[in-house]
């Protein structure tokens, strides 16, 4: 307010007495007016900088990326050869991680917003807790996303080391995994099958009860399976001891296993496979992204709830509705478009978030889309980072093409948010 006072004295001051005074005052205001003009022009020029930057940014990416856009990019796997490289596992990973993240984050985030906005604290203690939560959320929003990545690494990937056995990293709790020891038959051994061309190469799987058991020793009468087509078929195998000379019957040879053979352990995981700790899997990624976008969703939902006129709430309360009935029947439906807009924008942030995923998943070579919640994965921004950080030029243009895909996805999300916002504004009008 003191500022106003200053201004007042300035204009109150000397009424021009002589033409000289008048002239100097006029010159003063001319100066001020020209200063204003200059500043306005400078403003326009600087504001134009943002437009130029955007155009330059998009232009450089489009010119580099569009020529390498292809169907292979969307459907292929990240081959070491840039010509055939694709980003399908990364796109699928993004879809998995972000949808699970949304499923977990939205209820918690909207719940917190409802608590802070709609349930007035009932006593001094809750008042305190509420204000601490509120301050905490605005501080959480400023935490760099790498730090969340580090937290996710400890809290979700290794679960604070609670499940570490004496040896490094063991999965102590597993559901939905079947373990097999895989044997090759003698026909695949070039020495044993010498001269017997028509003996078939076959692989036999012996089921193992748990991952930590010692390797199976091939014994007569062992249960073994074999993939025939897509199914596991139980087969009888012949165990050949060290002294026995393998038969030269191709049929028998293709069924026989050396008694001293060392198996390889493989596992088959069902779609509901679950393990503790989560490891570097999809679920750990989704939970870490949750940490990143939770404050964003809470803050935007709070704003949406605050925008609902209180007359609606008062009306409902006057009719005898309880707090939750007001929220569920009145406030939430009225705030839904706003909450949805905020959530879509938060999700588009989650899609583009790279650093926390890089910390918890590392740079890994993934050829398949994730099959279950614990499966290893990569996401589109991470794939872009991977391609960009390679020295070869060809990968840079693939990275640019990946960026074009990423930006298109984000554009769709943002367009949805804008349409929703507009529709909402029309409704309230």
């Amino acid at each position, binding site marked *: 307010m003191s500022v106003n006072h200053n201004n007042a004295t300035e204009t109150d001051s000397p009424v021009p007495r002589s033409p000289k005074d008048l002239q100097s005052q006029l010159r003063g205001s001319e100066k001020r007016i020209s200063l204003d003009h200059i500043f306005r022009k400078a403003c326009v020029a600087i504001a134009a900088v943002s437009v130029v930057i955007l155009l330059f940014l998009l232009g450089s990416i489009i010119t*580099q990326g569009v020529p390498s856009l292809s169907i292979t990019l969307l459907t292929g796997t990240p081959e070491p050869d840039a010509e055939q490289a694709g980003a399908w596992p990364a796109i699928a990973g993004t879809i998995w991680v972000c949808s699970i993240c949304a499923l977990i984050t939205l209820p918690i985030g909207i719940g917190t917003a409802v608590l802070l906005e709609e349930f007035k604290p009932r006593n001094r203690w809750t008042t305190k807790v509420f204000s601490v939560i509120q301050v905490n959320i605005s501080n959480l929003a*400023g935490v760099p996303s*790498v730090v969340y990545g580090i937290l996710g690494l400890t809290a979700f990937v290794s679960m604070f080391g609670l499940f570490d056995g004496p040896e490094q990293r063991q999965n102590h709790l597993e559901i939905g995994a079947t373990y097999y020891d895989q044997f090759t038959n003698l026909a695949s051994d070039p020495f044993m099958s010498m001269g017997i061309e028509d003996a078939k190469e076959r692989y036999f799987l012996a089921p193992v009860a748990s991952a930590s058991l010692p390797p199976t020793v091939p014994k007569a009468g062992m249960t073994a399976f074999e993939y025939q087509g897509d199914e596991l078929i139980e087969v009888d195998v012949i165990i050949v001891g060290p002294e026995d000379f393998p038969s030269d019957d191709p049929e028998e040879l293709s069924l026989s296993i050396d008694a001293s053979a060392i198996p390889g352990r493989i596992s088959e995981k069902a779609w509901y496979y679950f393990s503790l700790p989560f490891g570097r899997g999809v679920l750990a990624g989704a939970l870490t992204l949750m940490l990143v976008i939770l404050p964003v969703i809470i803050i935007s939902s709070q704003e949406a709830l605050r925008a609902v006129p209180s007359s609606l709430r008062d009306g409902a309360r006057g009719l005898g509705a309880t707090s939750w009935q007001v929220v569920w029947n009145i406030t939430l439906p009225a705030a839904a478009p706003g909450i949805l807009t905020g959530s879509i924008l938060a999700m588009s942030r989650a899609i*583009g978030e790279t650093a926390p995923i890089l910390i*918890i998943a590392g740079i890994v070579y993934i050829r398949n889309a994730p099959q279950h919640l614990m499966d290893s994965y990569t996401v589109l921004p991470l794939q872009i*980072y991977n391609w960009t950080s390679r020295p070869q030029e060809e990968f840079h243009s693939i990275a640019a093409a990946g960026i074009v895909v990423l930006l298109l996805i984000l554009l769709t999300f943002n367009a949805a948010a804008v349409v929703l916002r507009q529709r909402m504004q029309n409704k309230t009008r």
Partner: protein
Amino acid sequence: MNRAVAEMSEASSTSLDARAGKILTRSRKNLSTTRLREAVIYIGLIACGLFSLLITVSIVGVLFGETLQFFRFDEVTLANFLGSAEWTPLLGATKSFGIWGLISGTLLVTGIAMAFALPLGLITAIYLSEYAPRKTRDILKPILEVLAGIPTVVYGFFALMTITPFLQWVHDGFNVYNAMSAGLAVGILCFPTVCSLAEDALQSVPNSLRDGALGLGGTRFDATLKVILPAALSGIISAFLLAVARAIGETMIVALAAGSRPQATLDPRDEIQTMTGFMVQMAGGDVSNFGTEYFSMYAVAFTLFLITLTLTMLGNLVRRRFRETYE
């Protein structure tokens, strides 16, 4: 009312009484189930709210705990950590953990970014809030929103593939990885943040002040410089602090464009490493999970967390405490 109904059809009066009684008990039952449901939901919502507190507690707990673990190693001393600028955790025998080697890189990038983003953001905010006609606003605002929504890895790509070659074209001395390029990209990233926060602050200055200044014969520029900016100062400072925190925590741009050689230098043409850049290097490479260098990642994260948390809290505090209120 019960009686009125009963008079209308005397024959069924007894059954009506029974029905009314039933309705009454049912509503009482409903009331108690409603109360129960209300309590359960309230507890559920409180749990949601406490979850965010749990996140903060576990960040502090995890970072602090693992940092302690880091200092328990023989090769690490607090004096070395806080007093040296030599950060060479991967050098085998001559390891040194001087955090200033990383902080100086972070500050260099942040300084360049802020030198770009703060003036530009503030002036654009002033333009948007005080000068711009509606039409220009309608074009400029969405552009800023788009800039703010672009993922950071894209800015990293832009820095490495466009800004760096441009800088090298201007001046030969620029390294492939350099602080300048990363700093400019971080600046572009922070620019919309500064702009929208500062604009909010300017917009919250009541129109009466603006009108008063203009009515006394001031130009727009006078009004902005002498009335509106001072009135919005707390909001603008808070915007600056939040932008600095954002720049310090920025990861992907520096990981791609700034390089990976920690050194205390002021030369923006040189390769440097920031705190976030180091964490990415650790996560991307295969470092054993139990060595000093692995735990050094937590110590760096803790330092980063403390710095950004202080800035964010300060920013929020300034905005809340020193806001000029006008009735």
